[in-house]
């Protein structure tokens, strides 16, 4: 009987014989000597580091100074030049990179680790997956039966304010803003003396899910922080929707909105303080949406 070691030796020998004359093996060797030994430690420049309105590459323009000045006024992708009728390679790659960020923000699952690390409790809507979420807006507006039960158990006594996050159309936006906006809102509420329950997360949620959250928790004010549909300019934009005594089926005009919360829009810290002020006004006026005078 052949021992294991002997067997391995035989196999190695046979394989070695076979590889000796194989052209593929030679090609691999050649490849190793020509590209893998001269690898630099440098990285290419980040294509997405340039501001679009500063990106300019028209050679010998009739009036470059004025071109650059006007281009600064708009995020439109101008002054990019062309090869034939087509885009230059860097322009094409920058567009694809921006679209990739937007797609990943929409389609990637919101990471469970993010919630675990912060001890954030998660509740479910009637959407059971991303696909259902995108094609059935009605299901994302309602909590699942279990989700509603669990939320009721989680909020033992009726809070004045509920603040929670939902991935919406950009989980990236929640990841980017959560750690700043939540403390800003909570500190503001504490200063005003309002009692708020511990923030939580609703997966695959639409804005309208906040109405069921209001009914289940019995809160006066409900504030959902939700990822906006990403554009190419940013995938990190988040909105806050606030209601006073929300109920399922209430009019959309009763929601107060703070949109465009991201670094290049309203930064999260500023937005958080603003949201706490709005909540204070909602208690004073007992209203939200069009009925609330800010």
């Amino acid at each position, binding site marked *: 009987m052949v021992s294991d070691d002997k067997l391995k030796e035989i196999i190695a020998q046979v394989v070695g014989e076979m590889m000796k004359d194989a052209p593929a093996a030679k090609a691999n060797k050649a490849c190793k000597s020509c590209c893998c030994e001269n690898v630099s430690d440098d990285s290419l420049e980040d294509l997405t580091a340039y501001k679009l309105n500063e990106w300019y590459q*028209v050679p010998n*323009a*009739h*009036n*470059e100074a*004025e*071109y650059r000045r*006007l*281009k600064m*006024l*708009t*995020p*439109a*992708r*101008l*002054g*990019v*030049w*062309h090869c*034939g*009728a*087509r*885009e230059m390679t860097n*322009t094409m790659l920058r*567009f*694809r990179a*921006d*679209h990739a960020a*937007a*797609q990943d*923000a*929409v*389609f990637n699952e919101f990471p469970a680790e993010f919630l675990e690390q912060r001890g954030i409790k998660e509740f479910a809507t009637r959407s059971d997956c991303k696909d259902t979420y*995108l*094609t*059935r*807006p009605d299901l994302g507006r309602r909590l699942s039966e279990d989700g509603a039960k669990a939320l009721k158990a989680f909020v033992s006594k009726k809070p004045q304010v509920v603040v929670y996050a939902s991935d919406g*159309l950009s989980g990236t936006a929640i990841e980017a803003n959560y750690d700043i906006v939540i403390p800003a809102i909570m500190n503001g509420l504490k200063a005003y003396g309002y009692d708020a329950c511990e923030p939580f997360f609703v997966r695959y949620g639409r804005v309208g899910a906040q109405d069921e959250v209001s009914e289940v928790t019995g809160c006066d004010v409900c504030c959902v922080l939700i990822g906006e*549909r*990403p*554009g*190419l*300019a940013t995938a990190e934009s988040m909105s806050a929707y606030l209601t006073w005594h929300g109920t399922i089926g209430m009019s959309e005009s009763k929601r107060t909105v703070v949109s465009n919360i991201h670094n290049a829009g309203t930064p999260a810290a500023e937005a958080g303080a603003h949201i706490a002020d709005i909540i204070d006004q909602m208690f004073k006026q007992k209203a939200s949406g069009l009925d609330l005078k800010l």
Partner: protein
Amino acid sequence: MILKSKLFGKVYEFKDVKDVLGKANELKSGDQLAGVAAETVQERIAAKACLANLTVKDIYENPVAPYEEDEVTRCIQDGINFKAYERCKNWTIAQLREFILDDHTTTAMIRDISNGLSAEVASAVTKLMSSIDLMIGAQKMPVYKTCVTTCGYPDRLSFRLQPNHTTDDLDAMRITYMEGFSYCVGDALFGMNPVDDTVGSVDRVLRDYWDFARKWEIPTQVCCLAHVTTQMECIKNGAPADMIFQSIAGSQIANDAFGVNIAMLDEAQDLMVHHGTGHGEDVLYFETGEGAELSADGHWDADQLTMEARCYGLAKRYHPYLVDSVVGFIGPEYLYDGKQVARAGMEDHFMGKLLGISMGCDACYTNHMKCDQNDNENLEILLAASGCNFFMGVPCADDCMLMYQSTGFHDDHATRQAVHKKPLPEFEKWCQKMGFLEEDGLTLGPNAGDASVFL
């Protein structure tokens, strides 16, 4: 009328004509959301088989929204040519399809019957058409319209220059449209979507655009895509406009949601005839898109393709210079992915052309849809080969205000090159004079891509 069909020995029964139309539609997420789609692929084909055997008369006599309750239905039913209808009312939808596709059927022969087709009939025959059918059929049905210039020539391809900006800043839009023109884009229309839909702001935009077009003698038509009532107010106050715009839908309920009705559109057209700055007869511009009716809860349990056809049925009343199906704007709950968007784009173009509409397409997509720029370029090329009258042109396909992706300056002229179609004749000469285009009408000239030629 037979509402049962059989496949592999199994009988499929349909409730009524509307049910057949819904289930015969190619798969669309919006029809599933509305609960009108076929449950299985086989049921879809069974519905197509049933539809193929219905007659033009069966479909005409069963509009999807009731005549008494919907003014769009009345406009369509009363608007057909009854002589043309008599010629084809006993044809089955299968015969209508084969007539359109027959090599011996000329454009004139199609036009002999097409004014007798209601929107629902156009939708019905479209459901029996595959992609190549939609292309071959549409190629036979060029539609020419005249505002300042004439569009629709089969050997030409034109574009709407859409220089949108997040705050309607005039200087920001200037550098955008200057660059667009330098890429030979803007022959179909020179017009933006305003953020600020007020008379003061729209008036300012109209005057800026119109003055620029006239100063540089650009053969195109100027329009600002505010609400129709805002534009009318501006024009009454003396603002120049070659065309007037409005978004329309395929039912009265859905048009109510857009704040528009037939009386209002009639008034707008009349105003343009007397106070517009374009000298042609065709002075309206409409935008549409599958799913708008369901989104406004005004779809009457009909499928979104049929509701879209009804938009063109309504548009026909005004012989618009352009109608644009903004096909991928609405989102994945109506058109799920690049495949569904491409199908809808091809269908809309064919149906529009069959109904005599100067049809264009905003080949586009949003970021929550499974679609990318490759899909979008495919659709632009497919439709250009089908004879589509125009597409949009935005910087690098990225509309920084509407936050969606459309067709870019660099896609547009390249599409002309790919299908060997030149710009509209007067615009071609102008581009050559400006150094944006070579003598061959296809190669970009030395000044292309340099907006500062105008500065």
